C-alpha cells in the first residue's frame, strides 16, 4: 500500500512542475505587452521601455520562469496591477464562493441522481427507466448557460421568487446567502445529475447480476435492504470517481455560471483577469486551479485504490 502511494507521489511532482511550466509559457507567450497594459494612460514609448526593464521582461524566458517559480514556492504569486491585491489574497477571498457553489451543486446532483440511478437500476428496462434515461440524455444536451437563462426567466423574471443575481456572504447572512445560491447551484446540479444517474445505474445493473445478490434474494431479504446495503457500495466506485472529477473541474470556478449570476468566485476572477489583460493574476490563479485539479485527481485515485484492491496491485 505504502509503496503504491510512494509511486503515485513520485509521479505527482513532475506533473505539477509541468503544469507550472505550461502556465508560465502560455501567459508569457500571449501577445500584448504587460508593461503597456500596466501603464494604461501613462503609456509612452519611453515609459513602456523603462517598465519592461523594471519588471525584468527583457530577460530570457527560462530565467523568468525560474524566478517566478522561486517566488511561487515562497508563497508569492504576484500582485494585480489593477487592485494592488496579492494574487493569493484574491484567491483566498474568492475561493469560498466557488467552493460553496461547487458543494451545493454536487449535493443537488447527488440528491437527484443517486435515488434515480438506484430506482432505474432496480426497474431496468421498465417504462420509468426508459423515461428517466431519455430525460437524462436530453438534460445532457442542454448547455449550462441555457438552463441558467431558463431558470432565471422562470424564477426571477416571471415568478419573482428568487433573485436573478447577487451574493451575500455566508458569515453575514446565511439565509440570504442560500437564496442567492439556489439558482446557480441548481443550474450546475441539473447539469451534473444525468452523469451520476447513468453511471450509478450501469454499475448497479452489473452488480445486481452478480451471484451474491442472487444469494441475498434467495435468502429472502427485502429488496430495499438488498439495494442499499448490499448493492450500493460496490457500485459506487465509479460514482466516487465521477464526483471527484466533477469537484476538480468545478474548482476552476464555473466561469459561465459565475458570470451570469454575478457570483464573486474564482471563475469571475479569471474572466476579469483575461479582460483586463492582468497576466500576473491570470498566471497565478490558473496555476492554483490546475494544481488543485491535479491534487484532487491524485486523492480520488488514492481513494479508489483503497476501495478497489485490484487497482492497487496492478491488475487493472
Amino acid at each position, binding site marked *: 500500500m505504502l509503496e503504491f502511494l510512494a509511486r503515485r507521489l513520485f509521479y505527482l511532482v513532475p506533473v505539477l512542475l509541468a503544469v507550472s511550466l*505550461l502556465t508560465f509559457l502560455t501567459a508569457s507567450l500571449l*501577445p500584448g505587452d504587460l508593461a503597456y497594459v500596466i501603464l494604461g494612460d501613462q503609456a509612452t514609448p519611453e515609459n513602456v521601455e523603462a517598465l519592461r526593464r523594471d519588471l525584468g521582461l527583457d530577460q530570457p524566458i527560462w530565467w523568468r520562469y525560474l524566478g517566478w517559480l522561486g517566488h511561487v514556492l515562497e508563497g508569492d504569486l504576484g500582485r494585480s496591477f489593477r487592485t494592488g491585491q496579492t494574487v493569493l489574497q484574491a484567491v483566498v477571498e474568492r475561493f469560498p464562493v466557488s467552493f460553496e457553489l461547487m458543494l451545493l451543486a454536487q449535493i443537488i446532483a447527488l440528491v437527484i441522481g443517486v435515488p434515480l440511478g438506484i430506482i432505474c437500476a432496480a426497474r431496468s428496462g421498465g417504462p420509468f427507466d426508459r423515461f428517466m434515461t431519455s430525460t437524462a*440524455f436530453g438534460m445532457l444536451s442542454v448547455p449550462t448557460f441555457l438552463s441558467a437563462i431558463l431558470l432565471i426567466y422562470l424564477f426571477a423574471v416571471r415568478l419573482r421568487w428568487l433573485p436573478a443575481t447577487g451574493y451575500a456572504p455566508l458569515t453575514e447572512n446565511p439565509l440570504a446567502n442560500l437564496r442567492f445560491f439556489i439558482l446557480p447551484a441548481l443550474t450546475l446540479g441539473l447539469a451534473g445529475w444525468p452523469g451520476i444517474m447513468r453511471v450509478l445505474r450501469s454499475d448497479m445493473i452489473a452488480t445486481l447480476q452478480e451471484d451474491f445478490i442472487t444469494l441475498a434474494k434467495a435468502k429472502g431479504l427485502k429488496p430495499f435492504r438488498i439495494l442499499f446495503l448490499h448493492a450500493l457500495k460496490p457500485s459506487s466506485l465509479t460514482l466516487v470517481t465521477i464526483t471527484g472529477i466533477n469537484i476538480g473541474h468545478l474548482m476552476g*470556478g464555473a*466561469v*459561465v455560471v459565475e458570470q451570469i449570476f454575478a457570483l464573486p468566485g474564482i471563475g469571475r476572477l479569471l474572466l476579469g483577469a483575461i479582460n483586463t*489583460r492582468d497576466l500576473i493574476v491570470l498566471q497565478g490563479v490558473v496555476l492554483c486551479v490546475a494544481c488543485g485539479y*491535479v491534487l484532487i485527481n491524485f486523492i*480520488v485515485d488514492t481513494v479508489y485504490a483503497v476501495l478497489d484492491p485490484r487497482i492497487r496491485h496492478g491488475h487493472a
Partner: protein
Amino acid sequence: MATLELSIRDEVVAGPVHKTRRLGMLFWIAVGWMILVFALAILAPALPLPRPTDMDMLVRRAPPSASHWLGTDGLGRDELARLIYGARISLVVGLCAPVIGVTVGGALGMLAGYFRGRFDALAVGGMDVLLAFPPLIFALAVTAFLGQSVFNLTCILGVLSIPAFMRVARASTLTLARREFVIAAQALGATHARILLRELLPNVTLPLLAFFLLGVAVVIVVEGALSFLGLGVPPPISSWGSMIGEGRESLEIAPWLAFIPAAAMFLTVLSFNIVGDSLRALSDPRQGAL
C-alpha cells in the same frame, strides 16, 4: 492512471440493455433534424431571406410579419436569417474543431496504445497536464489575446479536444493490440505502420466516429457559451450563442429572442448526441472487466 481507465469503463457501459432497438425512431428523427440543419446552412445564401446583418432600425423586436417570418431582433435584423446563418457558424466550428482533435488526438492515442512504454507514459502524462487546465479559460485567453475570429476559435477548440480523442483512441488500441489478429500480423513480420493502418485503424474508426459526433455536440455548446459571453465569434456574425446572449437583454419584453435560438441549439446538440451515442452502443465490443 486509474482515472483514464475509469472513464473508459464509463463510456463502455453505456445505453440501456436493449441494444438492438437503439436505431429506432429517435435515431432517425435525429438524423432527419441534422440533415435539415445541414441543408439550411449550406443553402443559406440561396434562400429568399433578408441579409442577417441588415438592420431595419425602426422595427426592432417586431413580431412575425410578411417581410420578417420570425420577426426581428433587438437591432431590427431578421431573426430567421440570423438563425440560419447562425447554424452555419455552429456547424462550421462544430465540425472543423473535432476534426483537428480526431486526427491529432487519434494518431497520438493509437501510437501511445500500440507502442506503450515510455512514449505511452509521456503521452498520458502530457494529456493529464493539459486536462488540468480549465478549458474555457484557455479558449477565452486565446481569443482575447489573439483576436476574435472564427478561425482562431476553431483552432483553439480543436486543440482542446485533442486529449479526449487521444484517450478514446488509446483505450481502443490498448485492448485491440493484444488480440490475436495483431499478434498474428506481428509474427508474420508486418511493419508497425502496416499493423497500425491496416489492422488497428479500421477497428478504431467506429468508436472514434461515435466520439467525433459527441465531440461536435460539445464544441457547439462551448462555442455557444463563448459567443454568449460575447467572446466567441466576432460581431456582427450571428451564432446561436451570441443570439441567446443578445436575447438575454430583452428577456422580459421579448423572451422568444433568446428561446428560439436556444431551441435550435438544443435540438441540434441533442441530435448529435443521439446519433453519436447510438453509434457508440453499436461499436462497443462486449469487453470483460478491464
